[in-house]
Structures are given as structure tokens and as C-alpha cells.
């Protein structure tokens, strides 16, 4: 993958909506344009995080099933 994440949030072990909330807190403090990657292994985040990204107007960079967890990256747009 070509995009390099600026920050990484390892939320594996957190239950829904923990990974989303940890991602949001990181996105809030990050500069516009930065890419934040979140790792999760709960059953909701892989569907919930892209929905949140779409709703608030950021950009989903990638969402990959790594087998025992998901790796999802978001670019802060505004």
C-alpha cells in the first residue's frame, strides 16, 4: 500500500465502540491531511468506522482484513 500512516491506534482488545472512539480522539488532535491507522478486532468496527468516516466527511484510505484483526486508515479532511 502506498499511503504511510502518520499515527497508529492499536485498539485490538477493545469492544465496540472503543476503536471508533479512540480513532475519533486521535483524529481530533491530528493536523488536517494526516492519515491515522486503527487496528481493531471487535465485530463492529470494520463496518462502523467507514460509516462514521463517510458521515463526518473524512476519507477512508484503506480497510484491510488482516485475518485476526482489521487495519483501517482515515485521512483527516477538515
Amino acid at each position: 500500500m502506498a499511503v504511510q500512516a502518520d499515527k497508529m491506534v492499536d485498539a485490538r482488545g477493545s469492544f465496540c465502540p472503543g476503536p471508533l472512539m479512540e480513532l475519533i480522539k486521535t483524529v481530533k488532535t491530528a493536523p488536517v491531511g494526516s492519515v491515522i491507522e486503527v487496528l481493531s478486532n471487535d465485530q463492529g468496527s470494520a463496518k462502523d468506522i467507514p460509516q462514521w468516516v463517510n458521515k463526518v466527511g473524512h476519507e477512508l484510505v484503506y480497510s484491510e482484513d488482516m485475518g485476526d484483526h482489521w487495519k483501517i486508515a482515515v485521512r483527516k479532511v477538515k
Partner: protein
Amino acid sequence: MNEQAPKMSVILISPELEKLHAGSLVASVAAAAGMTVSVFITMGALKGFRKDNVASKSFEYAEIGQALIDKKLPLFNDLLQDGKEVGDLQVYACALAMDVMDWKRVDMLDIIDDVIGITAFLNMSQGSQVIVM
């Protein structure tokens, strides 16, 4: 994605941990999604917001509530705190229930922003989606 109403009201009535948790989940994620969220806590739900009950985890719960506690999940009060940190979420205690139980603000969790009556809550929740637990 369809446009959602920009406001949501969550009314917590039940003392059951599962319902406190479910309502607080919806409230916190709605705040994270940019909605203005008002949480109104009344009747049996209010006792779950007493500092002493939270400290001793004195809640009413069944199988799933037990699992939430055993697996040390962030509970409803943590979820609401998260919602406050990432969005616009206010928590209100019902004045009637506070008065009838003779509970004071100091007895209650700090996440409670104010003690209000139903008239004030109706004004705040006008035009919002309403979820009752």
C-alpha cells in the same frame, strides 16, 4: 447516506445496566457522528448515576450486564464521558426523581451537567430523534 436529524434525545428510565449501557452507547456514538445529544436520566435509571453505586458497581443486571462487568468494559458513565469528549453531549438529571429521593448534585457523577425539569427537557429535545430506554 441519508441525512439524519441533527439532534438526538436519549431518555434513560430503567435501572438495568444493559439499558443504561445501550442508551449511553447510542448517545455517545451519535455525538461522535456530529449530532447534538441530550441525555435525560429519570426514575430508576438515576440511581445508576450515584457516585457510591458506580464505585461499588451496585447495578441491576442479567447475563450480559454481568459480562460487561466481568470483562471490565468501559461502562455507561465512561461511554457518556467519551461522547462529551468527542462531540456535543449533555447529561441531565430529572429534578422530580432527585427531589423525591432527596439526592443532591454532590451525590451524583460529575458527568451530569444539570438538574432540570421536564419543561426544560422538552424545549431542548424539540425536533430531535428520541430514544427511550
